[in-house]
C-alpha cells in the first residue's frame, strides 16, 4: 500500500499550460507569490498565516528579553495569583496601647504574629520579614513566631486577649470587622497594594507565568529546530545512498528504519532520554532519532523513482560520476519533500519534547519549558487553571504553525505526498 504511493510517479499534468502559469514567468518574485494566491486558494492563506505566526514566534524566541517583563526563574510575586489580579496589600493589626509599632518592633522570636491559615498573608509576612533581614545589620535576625488561625474572628480575639502581638490581614476584610474590637487598630502597612498584577498570573512558587512561556519559546525552538536538523542531516543522505545503491545495504537499512518507524515514537524517545539523562543536548538527540526514518523513507522512495528517469540514464551513459548523479541529478528532486517533512517535523518535535518533559524525562527542573510547566501545573489543576492553559496554548500554537506550513506546502508542492 505504502510502496504503491511512493513508487507512483506524479500523474502526468494536463498537457496544456494554464494561463496563470504563463503569467508567472513574466513577473517578479513578489508578484508571483500574489498571483499564485488565486490558484492555491485556501492553502495559500494557510502558508501566509503560518508564515506570519512563525515570524512572530521566531522573534519572540530569539529576543525573549524584549517581551518578558520578569526573570523567568525568579520568584517575583505571591504564589498562585490569578491572571490580572494585583497582589493585594496586607496590614499589621496591633493593640492601640502598643503605640506606633512596625514589624521591626515585634519581629522577635519571643513575639507571635497571627494570620489566617492558608491565606496569602503568610507570604506577605514572610516577604516583609525577608526584607527586614536583608537590611538588618550582621547578627540581627528577625524571626517572629507564626500563629495560624482558622477564621479572622479567632485571630482578632486572640490579639485582643493579648495572646499574640500582631495580626496580618488584608485591609478589605478588616474594614467592618475591626469596629468590633475597640482596643485594636491598623498599626502599619506590611505590603503596599501592587499597581498591576501579572498578565497570566503566577505559579505555585511565585514565578511570572507570562515570562516563563516567553522564555519557553526559545527552548522549544532550539529543541525543535536542532533535532529536526539532526534527523535531516542523517536521514536524507542515508535515504539517497540506500535508494541509489540498492543491494544488501539498502535491505538492511530499510529493515532497521521500518522497525524504528513502526514503533511508537514517544516510547522510543523516553527510553533514549532516560539513558542519556536530563539536558537539552540529550533531548535533542533522543527526539532526532525518531524522525530519521521519516526522512529516510521518503527520500529513498523518491530516489528509487527518479533513478529510472531518462535524464539520469543519459547522465550515466555520458560517464558522469555516481557522486555527481546523486548530488546534481537526484538530490534536487527530493528537496521539496524534504522541506515539507522538515516543517512538519519541527512541529512534531516540539510536541514530543513537551510530552517528554511532561513525563519527567526532559530538561532539568526549573528550566522555563512548557512541558515542565504543564507537568507542574497538573498538581494544581483544581484551583489554578492558568498554570496549564497558557503553556499548553503556546505548544499548540507553535506546533500548529509549523504543521500548517508543512501541510499546505505539501498540498501545493507535492499533492501526492500522504506520508506524515
Amino acid at each position, binding site marked *: 500500500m505504502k510502496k504503491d504511493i511512493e513508487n507512483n510517479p506524479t500523474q502526468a499534468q494536463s498537457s496544456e499550460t494554464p494561463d496563470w502559469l504563463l503569467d508567472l514567468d513574466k513577473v517578479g518574485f513578489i508578484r508571483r507569490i500574489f498571483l499564485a494566491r488565486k490558484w492555491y486558494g485556501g492553502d495559500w492563506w494557510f502558508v501566509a498565516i503560518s508564515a506570519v505566526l512563525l515570524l512572530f514566534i521566531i522573534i519572540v524566541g530569539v529576543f525573549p528579553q524584549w517581551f518578558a517583563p520578569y526573570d523567568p526563574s525568579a520568584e517575583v510575586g505571591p504564589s498562585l495569583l490569578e491572571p490580572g489580579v494585583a497582589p493585594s496589600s496586607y496590614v499589621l493589626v496591633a493593640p492601640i496601647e502598643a503605640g506606633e509599632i512596625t514589624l521591626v518592633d515585634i519581629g522577635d522570636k519571643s513575639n507571635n504574629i497571627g494570620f489566617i491559615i492558608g491565606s496569602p498573608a503568610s507570604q506577605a509576612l514572610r516577604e516583609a520579614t525577608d526584607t527586614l533581614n536583608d537590611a538588618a545589620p550582621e547578627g540581627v535576625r528577625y524571626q517572629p513566631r507564626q500563629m495560624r488561625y482558622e477564621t479572622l474572628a479567632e485571630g482578632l480575639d486572640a490579639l485582643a486577649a493579648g495572646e499574640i502581638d500582631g495580626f496580618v490581614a488584608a485591609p478589605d476584610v478588616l474594614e467592618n470587622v475591626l469596629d468590633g474590637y475597640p482596643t485594636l487598630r491598623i498599626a502599619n502597612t506590611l505590603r503596599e497594594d501592587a499597581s498591576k498584577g501579572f498578565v497570566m498570573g503566577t505559579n505555585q512558587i511565585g514565578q511570572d507565568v507570562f515570562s516563563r512561556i516567553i522564555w519557553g519559546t526559545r527552548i522549544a525552538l532550539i529543541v525543535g529546530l536542532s533535532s529536526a536538523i539532526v534527523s535531516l542531516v542523517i536521514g536524507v543522505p542515508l535515504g539517497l545512498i540506500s535508494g541509489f545503491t540498492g543491494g544488501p545495504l539498502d535491505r538492511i537499512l530499510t*529493515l532497521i528504519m521500518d*522497525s524504528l518507524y513502526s514503533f511508537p*515514537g514517544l*516510547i522510543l524517545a*523516553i*527510553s533514549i532520554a532516560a539513558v542519556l539523562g536530563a539536558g537539552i543536548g540529550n533531548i535533542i538527540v533522543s527526539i532526532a532519532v525518531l524522525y530519521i526514518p521519516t526522512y529516510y523513507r521518503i527520500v529513498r522512495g523518491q530516489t528509487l523513482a527518479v533513478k529510472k528517469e531518462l535524464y539520469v540514464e543519459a547522465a550515466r551513459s555520458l560517464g558522469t560520476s555516481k557522486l555527481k548523479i546523486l548530488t546534481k541529478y537526484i538530490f534536487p528532486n527530493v528537496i521539496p519533500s524534504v522541506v515539507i517533512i522538515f516543517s512538519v517535523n519541527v512541529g512534531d518535535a516540539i510536541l514530543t519534547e513537551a510530552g517528554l518533559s511532561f513525563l*519527567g524525562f526532559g530538561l532539568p527542573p526549573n528550566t522555563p519549558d512548557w512541558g515542565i510547566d504543564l507537568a507542574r501545573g497538573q498538581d494544581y489543576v*483544581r484551583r489554578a487553571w492558568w498554570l*496549564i492553559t497558557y503553556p499548553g496554548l503556546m505548544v499548540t500554537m507553535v506546533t500548529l504553525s509549523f504543521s500548517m506550513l508543512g501541510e499546505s506546502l505539501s498540498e501545493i508542492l507535492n499533492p501526492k505526498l500522504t506520508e506524515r
Partner: protein
Amino acid sequence: MSNSLRRYLITRVLMTIPMVLILVTIIFFIMRVLPGDPIRSQLGPRVSEEQADALRERLGLNRPLIIQYVDFIGDMLTFDFGTALTQGERPIKDELGERLPATIELTIPAITLTAIIGIFTGAYAAKNRKKPIDYIIRLLSIILSSIPIFFMGLVFQILVSVRVPIFPLSGRMDTLMLTTFESPTNFYVVDALITRNWPALWSAIMHLILPSVTLGLALSGVFVRLTRVNMIEMLQSDFITAGRARGIAENKLVFKHALRNTFIPILTLLGLQFAILLAGAVLTETTFSLPGVGRYLVDRIQLRDYTAVQSTIAVFAMFVAAISLLMDILYAFVDPRIRY
C-alpha cells in the same frame, strides 16, 4: 489461495520477526547503558555492597551481557518474560496482565471514535475539496493534532470535572466502590457487566469517557487528513466519473460507492495509527492516573527495571507488528495487485 498470495503472506510474516527482534535488541542494549542501577533503586543507598551483590547474583545481573541477552530472547520466544527486578519481583506476565486490560479498555473506545470522526469528516472534506468547509475541516484537524494530548486531557479535566463536575477527575472507578468490586479479568466494564453490578458499570464507564475522548480526538486529527487524501484519490477514479455520468446523486457516490472502496485502505491506515495510539496511551494514562501499561512503562523506566521495561517494550513491538501484519494480510486478500 493462489501461489503468489501464499508467497506474499509467508514473506510478510517472516519480515515481522526481524522487525520485532531489532527493536527488542535496541531496547535491550539501550537499557544496559543506563546510568542508574535497579538494585540500588530497590534497596536504597544504605545497603552494603555485599548484599547488593548477592541480589545481583540472584537476579542474574552479574552474568555477561551476551548471556543475559540470549536468555532474554529465549524468554521472549516462550512469551514468559521472567520476573520484574523491582517492586516485589513479581512475574512480568502477571504485572502486564493486570495493566493491559486498563489500556485496552481505554484504546478500544478511543480508536472507534477516531475511526468514526476520521472517516466521515474526511470523506465530507474530500467531497467538498477546495471549498471553505474543506479548509475549515483541515484547519481543525491540524489544530487537533497540534494539541498535546495531556494538555487536552487537562483542559477537559478543568472544564467538565472541576468547573462543572460531570465526570470524575482520574482513576478507573470510584475508590469507595473499588473496595468491594471484584474483577477477576481486570476488564472493569466487562466484569461489572457480567456480575450485573450496575453502579460499578456506570462508574467505570464514566471514568473512561474523558480519557478515551481525549485520546480519540487527538488521533482523529491525523486520521481525518489521511482519509481525505485517500478519498480524493478515489473520487478521481474512472468508476466515479462513470457513476457521475450516469446521474447518480453526488452524496450517494461519495458516501456509498467511493467510501466502500476506500474502506480497506482506510482500515490499513487505522492500523498504522496503532503505534501513535500506544504512545498517546502513555500520556493519557499519566494525565488521568489510569493504571495501564503506558504508566507502568514510564514508572519502570524511572526505576531502571531492565526486565520489566524491555518486556513491556517487546509486548508493544509485538502488538504493533501483529496489527500491521494483520492489516497487510487483510489488504492482500482484498487487493490482488499487492504481491511481492
